[in-house]
């Protein structure tokens, strides 16, 4: 059989090109590496070299032909001693290798169903011992317990050791674990985030603290391109079990460069898991799960929550599964989803709504990637109305995703359009009055909930 020479793709995006000129004629001897012809695309002119040896038996696409599709046959090559009569059979139409249908993919590739067909088992209620502590202490205990459990867990970041954490989250860890495992870094986020990923590649389980997530932007390349994508790029052979944690979201009066919610930024990215605890139990259970998880996990804490007190489980095996939401307050009239500090705002709003005769169900999302769509849908099937609350900006935010999921998964149960309550679509202002206007308040949530109840 003669060998078909196909129109090559000269760039990843090339779909067709012009066959400018043949350098060989029919009957010429061809050695591998010989220039066969010249091809022009809109970007460049390239020479096509022969891969196989033989005699150029027949040119199928003459000089100057435009719009030659990639992968269509342009010539036939006869092997040493092969007869020219073989050419006709090979050139017959229909036998040509069909170019892969480039644009054949449907407009929207259906996403693999992440939801199990049957509702997952409910998250077990913890009934063990608890102690009252701050979110800050809960996070510290979570890290300490996991560091006791696994020698490979280390903590590194700016001011985490001697200063005990810029926000005192790592209080006492240096004393207990020493400077080999609790490490002060220079102010070099990109460097130490990358270093953490490298160490994780060799089997360590680093916890990388960003003093705040605002500074993780210096390192976001390492988080996405190195941590999140490696497992996939390595065909599952190499991953990065690493935790990136620190305060996220609006802090108080620190203006635009220090006050921003990155939830939807990270939730956007396959290869990451993203959690955003609200309560002390959330903080502890999610942090422990994050450390044990074999994947890169982003833990979005909140500075304003650090000092708040909660009852927190003390059993060292207490874990909260990543990917599961929690109903903080059951209700039947309207679903309110929130995460991190906004859960408290939503609960406060629910209280105010109760006074007006509206029974709100508040869902603490806990995990933003994967998002517990099932829990939200189940709730909406009951309430038929939903408001999403977040501190972040509205455009392409978590609320946008929730609204889209409700269209896809709960459309027939909705009695009102989904409403998003978000941070104002502006950089965070410094002035006290403007800052308050920029962040969702319980009153904003109440209004939104009333509007979906048409009240």
């Amino acid at each position, binding site marked *: 059989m003669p060998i078909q020479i196909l129109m090559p793709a000269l760039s990843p995006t090339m779909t067709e090109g012009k066959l400018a000129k043949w350098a060989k004629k029919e009957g010429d001897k061809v050695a591998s590496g010989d220039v066969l012809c010249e091809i022009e695309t809109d970007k460049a002119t390239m020479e096509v070299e022969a891969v196989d040896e033989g005699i150029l038996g027949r040119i199928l696409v003459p000089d100057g032909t435009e719009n030659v599709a990639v992968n269509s046959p342009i010539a036939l090559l006869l092997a040493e001693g092969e007869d020219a009569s073989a050419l006709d059979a090979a050139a017959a139409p229909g036998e040509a290798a069909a170019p892969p249908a480039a644009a054949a993919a449907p407009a929207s590739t259906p996403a693999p169903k992440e939801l199990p067909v049957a509702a997952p088992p409910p998250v077990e209620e913890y009934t063990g011992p608890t102690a009252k502590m701050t979110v800050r202490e809960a996070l510290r205990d979570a890290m300490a317990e996991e560091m006791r459990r696994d020698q490979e867990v280390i903590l590194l970041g700016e001011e985490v050791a001697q200063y005990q954490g810029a926000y005192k989250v790592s209080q006492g860890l240096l004393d207990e674990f020493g400077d080999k495992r609790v490490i*002060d870094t*220079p102010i070099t986020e990109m460097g130490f985030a990358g270093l953490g990923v490298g160490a994780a590649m060799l089997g360590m389980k680093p916890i990388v603290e960003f003093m705040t997530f605002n500074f993780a932007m210096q390192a976001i390349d390492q988080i996405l391109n190195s941590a999140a994508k490696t497992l996939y790029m390595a065909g599952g052979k190499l991953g990065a079990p690493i935790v990136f944690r620190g305060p996220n979201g609006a802090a108080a009066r620190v*203006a635009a460069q220090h006050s921003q919610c990155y939830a939807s930024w990270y939730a956007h990215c396959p290869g990451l898991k993203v959690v955003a605890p609200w309560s002390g139990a959330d903080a502890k259970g999610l942090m422990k799960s994050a450390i044990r998880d074999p994947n890169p996990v982003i833990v979005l804490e909140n500075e304003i929550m650090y000092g708040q007190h909660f009852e927190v489980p003390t059993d060292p095996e207490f874990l909260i599964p990543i990917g599961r939401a929690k109903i903080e307050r059951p209700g039947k009239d309207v679903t309110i989803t929130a995460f991190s500090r906004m859960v408290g705002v939503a609960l406060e709003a629910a209280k105010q709504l109760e006074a007006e005769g509206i029974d709100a169900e508040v869902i603490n999302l806990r995990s933003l990637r994967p998002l517990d769509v099932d829990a939200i849908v189940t709730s909406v099937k009951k309430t038929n109305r939903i408001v999403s609350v977040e501190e972040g900006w509205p455009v392409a935010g978590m609320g946008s995703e929730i609204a889209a999921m409700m269209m896809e998964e709960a459309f027939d149960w909705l009695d009102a359009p989904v409403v998003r309550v978000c941070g104002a679509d*502006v950089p965070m202002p410094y*002035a*006290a009055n403007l800052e308050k206007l920029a962040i969702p308040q319980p009153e904003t949530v109440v209004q939104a909930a009333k509007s979906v109840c048409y009240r």
Partner: protein
Amino acid sequence: MPAEAAAKGGSEPQTHPEGKPDAEELLKLYREMLLIRRFEEKAGQLYGMGLIAGFCHLYIGQEAVVTGLQACAKDQDSVITTYRDHGHMLAKGMDPKGVMAELTGRIGGYSRGKGGSMHMFSVEKRFFGGHGIVGASVPLGTGLAFAHKYRGDGGLNFCYFGDGAANQGQVYEAFNMASLWKLPIIYVIENNRYAMGTSLQRASATTELYRRGEAFGIPGMPVDGMDVLAVKKAGEEVTAYVREGNGPYVMELNTYRYRGHSMSDPAKYRSKEEVASYRKEHDPIDGLRSYMEQHGIGDEASFKAIDKEIKEIVNEAAEFAQTSPEPDPSELWTDVLIEA
């Protein structure tokens, strides 16, 4: 100047201009440093009263750095710095009222209350911020220098950053370009020996920061940043070098901040004695004053008069910062983009 001498410093200015000191000039330097000192003390007070919030990084102790260098600057020169920016703005001739009102988040502030302590700008005075992300202002300053050269405006950029910032990767990306393209920029590393709670020694493999440009062919010089005359003298040399088109220069200004990193820092990472010794033995304002007294420049009465004048300026600024109204709620939505 040898590194050692610079590092030691002293309340006695070690370097003084040849010949008879220029009384007028010394008084001006004194006055400027005192304005920064008193302004910052007032800001600290207002913070304590809850009128200023968030992060507020005071410049107390470091006044000689910006004052001495600014004395070598021309109007067309630009300045960029970090969040520890109040002193730089005052030295650049920005209005203390506008700075203080920004600290209190009022409409009369340089950023109309939207930027706060760390983010103020004055195109007119060629002050380009006020930046909160450690290291990020260094490429920005390099870009300002690029524009100075491109437009041939004769200006150079003073790019101030801290000892901690000197470890950020983008600093070195900027150094390389600045040297490659011979940009008119002075990288002023304000080495106050700590980055928050981390001492230079604990964060930097090499601590002679003035040598950080060597790999890129950028010369450097350590300077006693507690001695305004030493700073000015070094500044004159370096600005001349840069203005001649020789490209960038790294100056390491050895200095000290008296207060915590920001208002919420208890500063337990250093001893009281260390702070006290700087205040007592190396204070830039006391040092200049005793130098002037030795040379018979200014008497008790003239220093008193300066004190009084500065106090009035600062009080007026504080008054303005409290009476200027909060921005109108509609301001929340403005200034995101320019209408086009």
